[in-house]
């Protein structure tokens, strides 16, 4: 229990305790040019995880970087990865080539780094060489003569067979008759066809003999015709053999020379062997190519980059590592769609038809990062259909299979390519929020299998001289990167202070740098407009004020409501059972404080303190807990030897939204004691703080905004020197008040009073010794007990009619409800109410 002896001894904090300054004037901050900028400043824990990820090769040790938006984690991680991997071995190149055995399954070939271009160059040289050599070989008179000889042989065979047939027919006095639909037979006499009349005139025996002859020739004709396809096949076979021999002679030397030039690439040489065989089998493609080239009057490579009919011999450079970089790749995929991750097979429109080939297989980020690191923004990844599943599948199989969205969903039934999957060995780094990590770890069993490492980024770092200097160096580096004017020392001081202010803690620096970076960009703009060569503190201060002005429309409206006495807030005089507690609002990332009148009424009862906010379902659970703590304090302080015969109610006046947090509990306790004892409280003081059952005051959040919120009201009405704010002593370390408040305090026109217990707060608020107040409270409670005892009536006697339903759910500030509530119904507290206002 806090002592009451300290009453009246609390002095306002000196001005230098209200804002922790940064001074670079005497100690120069480290500049970006002299200190290596480290993207992971203050992130030792994350750095360790990233270094572990880069150092390990075990499967599954991929990394999840948990960082708040604006922490610049992707860039910082990427910078660290690139530094770590620069000296690592460069991964292999990959090319896709035609599969001569299974054409719809292109083959993937692994080549040493930097060899893909060499391989394609050699193959293309070979093809260009053959484009000239093959037609020349087939145009040689020797080949033409051999081919014609084969064709003539077949023709002669046919001619001989039919000549023989003709002779056999004539020998049997049978003519072969040509008709429009084929060939027929007719009997001859003296070389002329017998007409039907003459034939009928023949003796029956002769007719029969002639019919027999016709039948014989018919059989001979059928037999001759039966041989033709066989002879034709034999001729074709011979022709093919001749072509193969010619092709072999034309290409062999070129192929062997190419193989010799690639002898250090065994996989490439193996492909050339398969290509050699296919060239011999499909040598006709060269004549097709020549014909098309003549028609189009184009070079060997068409405008779309294709070799036309000879494309099957080309090489698709899939992943190549040239001389432009060294070490393992670090790839950041900013748009991680399924196709961008696993690659895709593109199509081209030809004569109204979509076609594809192995040359149109395009790599995804997994291929490009193979052998290195792939950085993906987790928020983007989970917005893309099937991308997460594809990533997990690839990590599980240690290989990438190129599939389109249509294939995965079985929407496409057309025949397409099935490229041979490429094995992968890489480290994936997902960058997301901490909550994403928690959700994935809880609900996706695969996540912990594939992402065993967590780099948990800090949101702030301890503020010290060295960290301030490092932070300033970081800001200078950002200015250089962003092409801004350089910030001078005064600007850096203000920016560093603002970085501390944004954490709500004077002793820490925010590592979520985007806001400070944006502030510096705006300040640079102002400096440019003012024709300054560097950013100064004036530019930074103007930018801070301007930003606040842009965001403070609602705050200003609330303040206006108070100044016009629509929202009742007194800043002078004294009143019993009434105090100015300080609330914190957060709207769209902008935080501001505002005083709220809290009142208490007390009467005899059965020891209950009614939290009207809770009863009206406007109070959150933590706020309700704070009020319940008051009951504990009251019981421990006043009812250890008697029953608590009190019925009191507490309310945030003119509050029509939700209330959450316990930062008003100190103020509520003071108001309650004041109400019971009838001792008035100074309305010139605002109060914030949480209290425990022993009366000790505990730290709260948003102390700067709350103090400034009350100051703004007082300042608008005119500072009297009596005004000020009571805050928990443990919050002094968090003070980073704005210059206006600090200046007013320096001049003694406003005060910030730190208290450690409720008695110190009572002393400040009442101006009397806390013991006097406690005595009055004790007396009042004794009197309440006597009233209860004498009347013998229960607490229900005093219960008013519930009218909570008449309260509008949310009214604008300064617009009181038409039917002000009296006592709310005894409804259970609601946890679903939206806490728009926080007294935390």
């Amino acid at each position, binding site marked *: 229990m806090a002592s009451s002896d300290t009453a009246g001894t609390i002095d306002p904090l000196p001005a230098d305790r209200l804002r922790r300054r940064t001074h670079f004037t005497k100690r120069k901050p480290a500049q970006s040019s002299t200190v290596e900028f480290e993207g992971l400043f203050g992130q030792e824990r994350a750095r360790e995880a990233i270094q572990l990820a880069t150092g390990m090769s075990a499967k599954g040790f991929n990394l999840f970087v948990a960082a708040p938006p604006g922490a610049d984690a992707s860039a910082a991680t990427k910078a660290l990865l690139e530094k770590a991997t620069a000296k690592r071995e460069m991964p292999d190149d990959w090319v896709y080539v035609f599969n001569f055995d299974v054409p719809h399954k292109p083959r993937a070939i692994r080549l040493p780094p930097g060899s893909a271009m060499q391989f394609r160059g050699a193959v293309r040289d070979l093809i260009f060489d053959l484009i000239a050599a093959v037609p020349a070989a087939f145009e040689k*008179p020797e080949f*033409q*003569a051999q081919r*014609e*000889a084969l064709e*003539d042989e077949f*023709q002669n065979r*046919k*001619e001989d*067979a*039919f*000549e023989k*047939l*003709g002779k056999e*027919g004539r020998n049997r006095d049978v*003519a*072969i*008759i*040509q*008709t*429009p*639909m*084929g*060939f*027929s*037979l*007719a*009997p001859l006499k003296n*070389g002329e*066809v*017998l*007409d*039907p009349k003459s*034939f*009928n005139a023949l003796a029956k025996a002769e007719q029969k003999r*002639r*019919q027999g002859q*016709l039948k014989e020739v*018919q059989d001979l*004709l*059928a037999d001759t*015709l*039966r041989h033709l396809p066989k002879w034709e096949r034999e001729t074709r076979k011979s022709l093919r053999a001749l072509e193969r021999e010619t092709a072999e002679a034309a290409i062999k030397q070129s192929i062997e020379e190419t193989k010799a030039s690639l002898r250090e690439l065994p996989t490439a040489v193996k492909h050339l062997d398969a290509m050699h065989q296919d060239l011999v089998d499909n040598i006709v493609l060269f004549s097709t190519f020549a014909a098309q080239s003549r028609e189009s009057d184009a070079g060997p490579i068409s405008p779309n980059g294709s070799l036309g009919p000879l494309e099957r011999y080309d090489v698709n450079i899939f992943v190549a590592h040239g001389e432009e970089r060294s070490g393992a790749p670090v790839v950041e995929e900013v748009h991680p769609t399924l196709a961008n991750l696993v690659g895709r097979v593109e199509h081209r429109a030809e004569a109204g038809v979509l076609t594809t080939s192995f040359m149109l297989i395009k790599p995804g980020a997994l291929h490009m990062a193979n052998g290195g690191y792939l950085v993906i923004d987790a928020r983007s990844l989970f917005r893309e259909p099937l991308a997460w599943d594809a990533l997990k599948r690839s990590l599980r199989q240690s290989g990438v299979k190129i599939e389109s969205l249509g294939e995965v969903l079985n929407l496409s039934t057309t025949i397409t390519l099935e490229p041979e999957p490429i094995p992968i060995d890489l480290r994936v780094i997902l960058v997301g929020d901490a909550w994403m990590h928690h959700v994935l770890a809880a609900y996706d069993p695969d996540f912990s299998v594939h992402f065993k490492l967590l780099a948990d980024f800090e949101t702030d770092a301890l503020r010290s001289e060295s960290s301030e200097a490092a932070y300033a160096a970081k800001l200078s580096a950002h200015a250089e990167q962003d092409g801004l004017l350089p910030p001078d020392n005064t600007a850096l001081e203000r920016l560093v202070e603002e970085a501390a202010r944004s954490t709500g803690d004077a002793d820490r620096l925010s590592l979520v740098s985007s806001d400070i970076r944006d502030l510096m960009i705006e300040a640079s703009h102002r400096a440019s407009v003012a024709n300054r060569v560097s950013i100064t503190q004036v530019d930074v201060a103007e930018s801070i004020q301007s930003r606040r002005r842009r965001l403070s429309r609602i705050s200003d409206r609330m303040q206006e409501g108070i100044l016009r006495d629509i929202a009742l807030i007194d800043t002078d005089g004294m009143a019993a059972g009434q105090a100015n507690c300080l609330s914190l609002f957060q709207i769209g990332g902008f935080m501001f404080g505002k005083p709220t009148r809290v009142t208490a009424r007390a009467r005899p009862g059965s020891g209950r303190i009614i939290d009207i906010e809770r009863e009206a379902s406007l109070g959150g659970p933590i706020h309700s807990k704070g009020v319940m703590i008051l009951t504990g304090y009251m019981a421990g302080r006043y009812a250890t030897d008697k029953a608590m015969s009190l019925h009191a109610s507490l309310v945030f006046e003119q509050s029509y939204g939700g209330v959450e947090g316990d930062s008003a509990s100190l103020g509520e306790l003071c108001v309650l004691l004041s109400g019971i004892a009838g001792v008035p409280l100074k309305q010139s003081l605002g109060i914030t703080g949480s209290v425990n059952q022993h009366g000790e005051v505990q730290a709260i959040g948003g102390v700067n905004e709350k103090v400034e919120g009350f100051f703004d009201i007082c300042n608008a009405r005119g500072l009297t020197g009596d005004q000020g704010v009571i805050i928990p002593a443990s919050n002094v370390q968090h003070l980073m008040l704005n210059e206006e408040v600090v200046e007013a305090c320096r001049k003694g026109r406003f005060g910030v009073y730190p208290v450690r217990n409720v008695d110190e707060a009572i002393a400040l608020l009442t101006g009397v010794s806390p013991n006097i107040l406690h005595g009055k409270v004790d007396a009042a409670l004794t009197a309440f007990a006597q009233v209860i005892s004498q009347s013998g009536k229960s607490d229900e006697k005093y219960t008013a009619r519930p009218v909570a339903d008449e309260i509008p759910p949310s009214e604008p500030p300064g617009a009181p409800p038409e039917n002000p509530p009296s006592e709310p119904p005894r409804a259970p507290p609601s946890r679903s109410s939206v806490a728009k206002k926080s007294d935390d």
Partner: protein
Amino acid sequence: MTEVLARFTKCTVVSIATIDHAAGEAAALTIARRFGSSCRAILVTNEDMVVSAHATFGHVLDVVTGQWRDLRQVIETPKRPKRSVQRIELLSEMARSVGIEADISVLESGQALADVKATPRQDLLILVQPTDPLARQSHPFTELRHAALSAHAPILFVPPHLPTGSRGILVLAQREGDPAIEVAEQVSRVIGEPVKRSGASRLEELGGIWEADRTRLPSIIVTARDVQLDDPAFVSRMTLRLGVPILLIESEA
């Protein structure tokens, strides 16, 4: 031999109407235009033979399927007259495109044979060669070739495709003063290509030479008819095999 050429007052192109010989007919009309003569074209039909075949044998071999079918389908097809008209129209159009006027008639084989046999000495008979070897063993072509060879007029056997370019006129002569030499020289003056004298005197001697080097093939081969008449079918075959028109003239001009 100016007299000989002076008698080429008319070229008579003879082709089988039964099936299409568009390429050969175009070649025949082209060469007729080169000789600068008036032109008559005879398309030979053999409906009487088909009727006889139907009455005595009754089947027709479909060369596409290799199946024997009832010949009645050919006899009774209503398209036959229409087909003749189409053939005349096609040949007329072809003559116009080649740049020659042609008097075209469709004749039954009996009449056609008679006309061919009666072709005057000063005319030129141009015989279109069927590319199908079975067609060349069939009636009416065999009869037509026989009739042409029994006529006094020179006969030009024409392949479906003429050699391109100026390749010269090759003459096969058995002896000095062979009338083939004189005719070749006259043809040379008309078509503007040089005469070349072959060391060979018979067609069969040429085959082996030219098969080795077809670039040496001439535009026309001129030879005496009696030298080559051992096997008339062989002349047809060589015409197609070499792809060169062969002009057969009578030994005694």
